[in-house]
């Protein structure tokens, strides 16, 4: 190997070493940025999911806030303020947890309200049924009372008729005994 070649090789190795030591931190920074971007993107997607999940629109403000924070994180990432980005992303994760909890609570609340409404309906139905039952019983008693009176009157009439018939028969028998048959109507 010539001196020139050696110097060339030395230069190449030096250049390679310089390149290797200079590119390392840059590559690490780029990886962190990508991770943060993915994290931001993932959270943005999850925001859309949360919006869909929030059928009752109970967390509109929180979701708006979450979006603004994600935007802030994005801006910070652009400014390579990675620590702040992580802090903001930690906050957005907690905010997403809060939103999920609130959505669940809102659903449970709706469910509870529905149950309350259902219960109220059932109670109203019970009240209506009780009233209808009372009305029916009242009506039935009224009819039974009227019927009882009618039956008693009929019985009295029958008794009177029987008494009349018995009296007539007795009179007829007496007349037959005395030979006075009378004139049939």
């Amino acid at each position, binding site marked *: 190997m010539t001196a020139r070649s050696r110097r060339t090789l030395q230069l190449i190795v030096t250049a390679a070493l310089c390149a290797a030591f200079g590119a390392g931190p840059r590559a690490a920074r780029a990886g962190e940025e990508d991770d943060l971007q993915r994290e931001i993107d993932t959270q943005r997607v999850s925001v859309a999911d949360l919006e869909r999940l929030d059928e009752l629109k109970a967390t509109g403000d929180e979701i708006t806030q979450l979006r603004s924070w994600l935007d802030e994180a994005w801006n910070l990432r652009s400014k390579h303020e990675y620590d702040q980005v992580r802090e903001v992303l930690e*906050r957005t994760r907690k905010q997403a947890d809060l939103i999920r909890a*609130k959505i669940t609570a809102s659903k449970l609340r709706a469910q509870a309200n529905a149950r309350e409404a259902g219960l109220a309906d*059932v109670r109203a139905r*019970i009240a209506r*049924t009780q009233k209808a039952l009372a009305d029916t*019983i009242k009506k039935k008693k009224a009819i039974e009372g009227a*019927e009882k009176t009618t039956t008693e009157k009929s019985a009295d009439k029958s008794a009177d008729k029987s008494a009349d018939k018995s009296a007539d028969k007795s009179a007829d028998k007496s007349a037959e005994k005395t030979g006075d048959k009378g004139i049939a109507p």
Partner: protein
Amino acid sequence: MTKTARRTAPRIALALLPAVLSIFAGCATPPKPRELEAYDLLRKSANLQDASKKSPDLVAGAEKMADRSREEWQSNDLEESRRDAIMANIKLKTALALSEQEQLKAKIQTLSAQQAKAEEEASDLSEKLANENEKLVLLQKYVEARKTAEADKQRLSAQMTNEQQKAQADHERLALQLASEQKIAAAQLALRTADTVDASKFAKAEYSAASDMLAKASAELQQNDYAGAQASAEVAKKNADKATEMAKPLYEQAEQASQNKARDEALARDASAISGADVRLERRGDLQRLVIAVPELFSKRKPEIANGHDAVIDAIAQLIKKYPTYPVQIIGYTDNRGKASELLAISAARAQSVYSALASKGVETKRLMASGLGGDDPRFDNKTAPGRAKNNRIEIVFLYH
């Protein structure tokens, strides 16, 4: 101090006042971050205690962040304070939301139980109501049926009463009709009875009146004028009875006469059939006489019936018995030879012999009268022997009017 300095001093003080104030302001505590105020407000929530129980880590974390925020605020590190307050808010809100979830779950569970109980109660009530409604419907049906039955009963009763009245009217009408028909039949019978005595002949006026009234009664019956028919029939019957009453003696007389005549004729025919006897009819005043003359019944001057004449005697006895209403004379006759007293005695004895013979044949003796007339009333010439023989005779005389 100079006059100029006295004038400028207040001005300088006034000019320095903002700067002094800003120095004081810079040294004083900065305003509390809004987020921290919000956190403090959130901490006053009634559910904080439950949230602490449910999510102690979250609440503790929130408190820690809030404390740090306060410290940062006190240290005038507002941005850090605000960020930590935000995190504290988020954590506490999450804890509260989780606590609310728990409460809501419990509430839902309670409500579900209550709803189930209420549903059960509603179901029971509905069942009761259905039962009561069913009973009510049945009761209403029963009442309806009873009312219908009552109405039917009344209608049938009315119908029956009408039918009874109609039947009664029919019965009365039929009774009247029957009575009319009976009276008409009675009048017809009376008229037929009148016919049997030839009332049309012997009581012409009454019979004619009866017939007319009967025809009238029949016409009135046809027109359902039962009272008129009965009255007419009664009059017809009376007229017919009267006609019968009037005609009967006349009819009987005529009938008797007719019968007598027929009997007499029969007697005459039967008498003519006796062999050895001569039969003749005579009228003496009102009396009609059928004379059966039997000659040569006795031997000469003998009072006893000669042998060989039983057939004649039997025939005469049968004839007398056949016609039991006629009184019968047995008269003996002789010829004119001999004393009249002897002849009379012989003829009487001969009549008595015949009387006895007939009596022995079963003829009622109370109907018989025996006598002798001797030689009186000769029927043949006593100058000749045959004439005398024929004058010696017995005459059986049936008497009638």
